[in-house]
C-alpha cells in the first residue's frame, strides 16, 4: 500500500524526493528499525492482522488506506488528520494519552487533529507493557524518535517542493514554514510526499529542546474522557461480537482442586442455558492456566449466573487444602526470625549489633490483598476453524497473544488479540487466565463467548498480592546513630506461580524495597527467608515494595523515637549526603528494575530533596491538637523517589481520619503533569485501603472473603485531600503508577504513633484503633 502511493504524486515531485537523500533507503530504514522497532516498509504487515472484521474502529491498527504511514506509530492523511498508535493498553493511568502525546510533541502537530488507534500485540513496537511502571520509562526515547523522524521527513518534503535546503524549513504546529520566504505547507499537503522519503538515520534527527515542548510536561486531558462521562467508552466487558454467548464458571475453591463429581441438570433447565460442561485440565504450576471447574454458557449473563448457582459439585481440594492463614502466619514469622539467604552484606552486622548501645528489633506483618479492579477479569473469545480472535482488557497484549496461541496449539499469526479499555488493572490484568477460559469454552461450543468474572470470582481466585513477615533488627550507638541494620523478609513469591519448586523469594525479589535500602549505615544485612506457596501470587500495584516499605519506614520511625530524634530529621540523616549507591559493593546482585545504573542511578541527593520538600510543604513539625499527628516515609520504587507525610486525626472513639497527605516526588521528566498528580491521588487512596481495611485470608485452602462487604476498600468518607509536589527534573522519565503506594502505610502508622503512642505493626490496621 505504501508502494502504491508513490504513483499518486506528480512525477516531478517524486523525482525530487527520490533524489533528495544521499543515504540508502533500505539501510536507513534498518537503522530506524533498530532504534524504534518501526518502519514504513513493514507497516503493511500489521494491517493484515485486521483481516477479521471488528466494528470498533478504535481497536484497529492504522488503516493504511486512510493516511500515509510514516512508521509504525503514525500516519498523516491528506486532510491533515494525524493518526497515532496507542501502543500500550489503557488501565487508568493515562498511557493511552501520554504515549501518543510524546509522538505528537516531537511531530509538532496539533493535538486537536490527532486520532488514536489501539495497537495489536506487535513486538516491533517495543515493550507494550503497562506493568512495572515502565510504559513511559521504556518508550520515551523511542516515541520521541518516531515523532521527530516524521517531523524531519515533512521538513525535507517541503524543502523538495520548494527547491530549497531542508535546513531552511521548520515545523511549526502542523505546518512547515520556509524561513526565508515565509511560505507555508500544511502537514496534510505534504503527507504523501513525506511518507515516501527514506526514514532518516537516528543521527540525522534532532530531538526538541525542552523549551520547545508543546505537550510534554503539560496538562492533557485523557483522550477517552468524554466517552467515559457519556457512558460510551468501550471496556472489555462491553465488547459484543455477533453471535456472542455468555459464560459463567464455578471454579475449584482451592487452587489445584477439581470436581470429584458434578450434576448440571438443574442448571441446564434454566431458560436460555445452552451448554454446561467441565473445562480445563489444571496442572501445577498455575502460570496462566484456567483453574478448571464447570462452565455454564447461556444467551445472557443473568441466565449463566443463575444457572451456575444451581450446579451441584463435590470438590476435591487437592494439595493446598490445608492452607490456613493463622497457621501460615506463624510459619512465615518463624522463617523470618531465623537466618535466611544473604542478598546484601555490608560490614559485619552481627558484631555491630552485639556492640550497640541499644539493640532494637521489631516484626511486621502484611496480609494477602486482591486487586479488585472495578471491572472484573473478562474476555471474549472466538475460536473456530483453526483461528482465534480474543478481546480482553490487558496490561500487555503480547501476553494473551502468546498464551492463547500456546494453549490452543496455534501459530501466533492465527491468533488476534484486541485491547479494549480496562476498568482498572493494578497488576491483575497482566494475567490472561480469563482469556484462556474464554478460548477453551469457545473452542468447545464453536461460538464466540464472553467469560466475565463475578466479584466473588475476582476476590476468591485472584493472583494475590503476597502475604509477608518482616523481621528487623538495628543497633544504635550512644548518640542514637544507627550502626547496624538487619532485614529479613519471608513471603510466597510470584515466581512460585510459575515454578513448582520455588522455596520462597529469590534474591531479586528483595530488590523491591529491601536490598535497595538507601540508608548510609556501616553494617547492613538483608536476607531472603523461605516460604511455602499455596495459592496464585501475582503483581499488585508496587508489589513487594508495599511490605518492604512498611517495615523499613516503620522501623526507621521506631529507631528515631528510640534515639529521641525527630523522624524527619532522622530520615534525612539516614539517607545521608548526596551520592550514587552501588549495591554491588555490598555483594548484592541488584537489578535496578532492569535498567542501567548509569541512566537511572540511586541518587541520595534527589531522595533527600524529596524528603526536605515534603517536610516543608506539609508543615512538618508544627504543633497539632491532641489526638493528631504526622508521619513521614520515603520509598524509592520503580526508580521513582517518593516522600510522603500523612496527617492523621484519631478520634476519642479510636476512629482513624486522614485529613491530608502530602507527597514530594521525583520521577524525572514529567510527560503529563495532570495525570501524574492523578496517579498519586489515587495511589494514596489505594495505599490507605491496603494499610487500613483490605485483607484476604484463607481457611482450608479457600479464600474467606467474597465481595466488597468483607473485602473492604476505601470509600469516599475516608478519603483524604492529597497534595502532590513534583520536583522539576530533566532526568530520564520514570513511572508513576506504582510508586505512590508504598510510603502510605508506614507514614500512616508513624502518624498514628505520633498521635497516640500506639505502634501498629500488622496490616491492615483497621478503620479504628
Amino acid at each position, binding site marked *: 500500500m505504501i508502494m502504491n502511493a508513490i504513483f499518486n504524486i506528480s512525477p516531478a515531485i517524486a523525482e525530487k524526493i527520490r533524489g533528495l537523500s544521499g543515504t540508502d533507503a533500505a539501510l536507513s530504514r534498518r537503522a530506524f528499525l533498530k532504534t524504534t522497532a518501526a518502519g514504513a516498509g513493514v507497516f503493511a504487515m500489521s494491517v493484515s492482522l485486521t483481516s477479521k472484521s471488528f466494528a470498533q474502529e478504535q481497536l484497529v491498527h492504522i488503516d493504511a488506506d486512510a493516511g500515509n504511514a510514516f512508521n509504525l506509530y503514525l500516519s498523516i492523511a491528506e486532510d491533515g488528520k494525524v493518526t497515532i498508535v496507542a501502543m500500550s493498553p*489503557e*488501565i*487508568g493511568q*493515562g498511557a493511552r494519552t501520554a504515549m501518543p502525546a510524546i509522538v505528537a510533541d516531537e511531530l509538532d502537530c496539533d493535538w486537536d487533529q490527532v486520532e488514536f488507534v489501539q495497537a495489536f500485540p506487535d513486538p516491533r513496537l517495543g515493550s507494550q507493557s503497562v506493568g512495572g511502571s515502565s510504559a513511559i520509562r521504556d518508550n520515551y526515547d523511542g516515541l520521541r524518535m518516531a515523532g521527530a523522524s516524521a517531523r524531519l521527513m515533512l521538513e525535507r518534503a517541503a524543502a523538495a517542493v520548494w527547491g530549497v535546503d531542508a535546513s531552511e524549513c521548520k515545523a511549526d504546529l502542523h505546518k512547515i514554514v520556509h524561513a526565508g520566504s515565509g511560505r507555508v505547507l500544511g502537514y496534510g499537503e505534504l503527507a504523501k510526499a513525506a511518507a515516501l522519503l527514506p526514514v532518516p538515520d537516528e543521527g540525522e534527527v534532532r530531538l526538541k529542546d525542552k523549551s520547545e515542548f508543546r505537550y510534554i510536561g503539560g496538562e492533557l*486531558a*485523557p483522550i*477517552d*474522557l*468524554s466517552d*467515559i*462521562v*457519556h*457512558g*460510551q*467508552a*468501550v*471496556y472489555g*466487558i*462491553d465488547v459484543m461480537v455477533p453471535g456472542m454467548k*455468555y459464560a459463567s464458571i464455578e471454579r475449584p475453591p482451592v487452587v489445584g482442586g477439581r470436581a470429584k463429581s458434578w450434576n448440571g441438570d438443574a442448571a441446564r433447565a434454566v431458560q*436460555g442455558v445452552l451448554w454446561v460442561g467441565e473445562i480445563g485440565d489444571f496442572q501445577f504450576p498455575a502460570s496462566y492456566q484456567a483453574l478448571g471447574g464447570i462452565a455454564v454458557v447461556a444467551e*445472557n*449473563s*443473568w*441466565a449463566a*449466573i*443463575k444457572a451456575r448457582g444451581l450446579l451441584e459439585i463435590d470438590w476435591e481440594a487437592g494439595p493446598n487444602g490445608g492452607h490456613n492463614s493463622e497457621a501460615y502466619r506463624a510459619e512465615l514469622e518463624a522463617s523470618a526470625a531465623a537466618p535466611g539467604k544473604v542478598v546484601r552484606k555490608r560490614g559485619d552486622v552481627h558484631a555491630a549489633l552485639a556492640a550497640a548501645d541499644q539493640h532494637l528489633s521489631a516484626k511486621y506483618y502484611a496480609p494477602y490483598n486482591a486487586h*479488585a*479492579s*472495578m*471491572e472484573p477479569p473478562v474476555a471474549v473469545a472466538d475460536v473456530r476453524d483453526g483461528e482465534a480472535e480474543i478481546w480482553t482488557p490487558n496490561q500487555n497484549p503480547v501476553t494473551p497473544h502468546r498464551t492463547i496461541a500456546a494453549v490452543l496449539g496455534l501459530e501466533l499469526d492465527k491468533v488476534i488479540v484486541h485491547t479494549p*479499555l480496562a*476498568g*482498572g*488493572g*493494578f497488576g491483575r490484568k497482566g494475567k490472561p487466565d480469563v482469556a484462556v477460559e474464554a478460548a477453551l469454552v469457545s473452542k468447545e461450543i464453536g461460538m464466540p463467548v464472553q467469560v*466475565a468474572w*463475578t*466479584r*466473588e470470582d475476582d476476590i476468591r481466585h485472584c493472583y494475590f498480592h503476597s502475604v509477608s513477615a518482616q523481621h528487623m533488627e538495628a543497633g544504635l550507638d550512644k548518640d542514637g546513630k544507627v550502626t547496624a541494620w538487619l532485614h529479613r523478609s519471608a513471603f510466597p513469591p510470584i515466581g512460585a506461580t510459575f515454578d513448582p519448586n520455588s522455596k520462597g523469594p529469590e534474591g531479586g525479589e528483595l530488590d523491591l524495597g529491601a536490598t535497595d535500602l538507601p540508608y548510609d549505615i556501616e553494617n547492613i544485612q538483608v536476607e531472603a527467608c523461605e516460604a511455602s506457596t499455596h495459592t496464585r501470587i501475582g503483581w499488585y500495584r508496587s508489589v513487594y515494595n508495599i511490605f518492604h516499605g512498611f517495615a523499613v519506614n516503620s522501623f526507621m520511625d521506631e529507631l528515631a523515637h528510640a534515639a529521641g530524634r525527630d523522624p524527619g530529621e532522622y530520615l534525612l540523616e539516614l539517607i545521608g549526603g548526596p551520592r550514587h549507591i552501588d549495591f554491588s559493593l555490598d555483594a548484592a546482585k541488584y537489578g535496578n528494575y532492569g535498567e542501567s545504573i548509569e541512566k537511572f542511578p540511586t541518587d541520595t541527593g534527589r531522595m533527600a530533596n524529596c524528603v526536605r520538600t515534603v517536610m516543608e510543604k506539609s508543615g512538618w513539625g508544627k504543633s497539632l491538637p491532641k489526638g493528631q499527628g504526622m508521619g513521614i516515609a520515603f520509598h524509592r520504587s520503580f526508580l521513582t523517589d517518593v516522600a510522603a507525610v500523612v496527617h492523621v486525626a484519631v478520634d476519642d472513639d479510636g476512629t482513624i481520619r486522614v485529613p491530608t497527605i502530602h507527597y514530594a516526588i521525583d520521577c524525572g521528566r514529567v510527560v503529563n503533569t*495532570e495525570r501524574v498528580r*492523578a*496517579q498519586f*491521588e*489515587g*495511589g*494514596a*487512596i*489505594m495505599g490507605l485501603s491496603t494499610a487500613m481495611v483490605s485483607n484476604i485470608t484463607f481457611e482450608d485452602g479457600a479464600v474467606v472473603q467474597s*465481595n*466488597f*462487604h468483607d473485602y473492604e*476498600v*476505601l*470509600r*469516599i*468518607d475516608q*478519603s*483524604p*485531600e492529597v497534595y502532590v509536589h513534583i520536583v522539576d527534573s530533566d532526568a530520564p522519565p520514570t513511572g508513576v503508577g506504582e510508586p505512590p503506594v508504598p510510603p502510605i502505610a508506614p507514614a500512616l502508622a508513624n502518624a498514628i504513633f505520633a498521635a497516640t503512642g500506639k505502634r501498629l505493626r500488622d496490616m491492615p490496621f483497621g478503620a479504628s484503633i
Partner: protein
Amino acid sequence: MIKLSVNGVGYSFDGDEDMPLLWYLRDVAGMKGTKFGCGAAQCGACTVHQDGMAIRSCVTPMAALDGAEITTIEGIGSGHMDGMHPLQKAWVEYKVPQCGYCQAGQIMQAASLLADSPNPSDEDIDGAMWGNICRCGTYPRIKAAIKSVAGQSSEGGE
C-alpha cells in the same frame, strides 16, 4: 410482559423476570454504559435512576419495574445544554476519571443527590456517595466536581 421506559424510549420484556435490570440493559437492550461491579449492591457501579431516584440495577429485578421510567448514563444529559448534565461537564473539567469504569455510577448517584439536595454539605456528599466505590481513588475529584455543580440553578429536568 414488563413494560418500561429507558431514557424516554419504551421497551417491553417477556423473559425471566428475575433478571436484574443491569443485565437487561447490558445484554438485552445493548446499553453498555451501566456497569457491573459487584452484583450485590456493594459498589454502586450499576447505579441508574428509577423515576428520578438512584437505584442499584444489579439487584433490581425486572419484575419490579413494570411501568418504571429508567434513566441511565446514556440519557442523563438529555434536556440539558449541550446534551450534558452539569455533573458530566464538571467531571470533564476536573478530569475526574482514571480508568473511568465506575464513573457512570458515580455521576448517576451524584445527580440523584443534587436533585434531592442542591447544596449538599461535605457530610451529605459522603453519605450519598459512600456506596460508590472507586478503586482508582478519584474520590477527592468526585467531591470537588460535585461541589462545583452544587448551587447551580437547574438547567432542566432529566
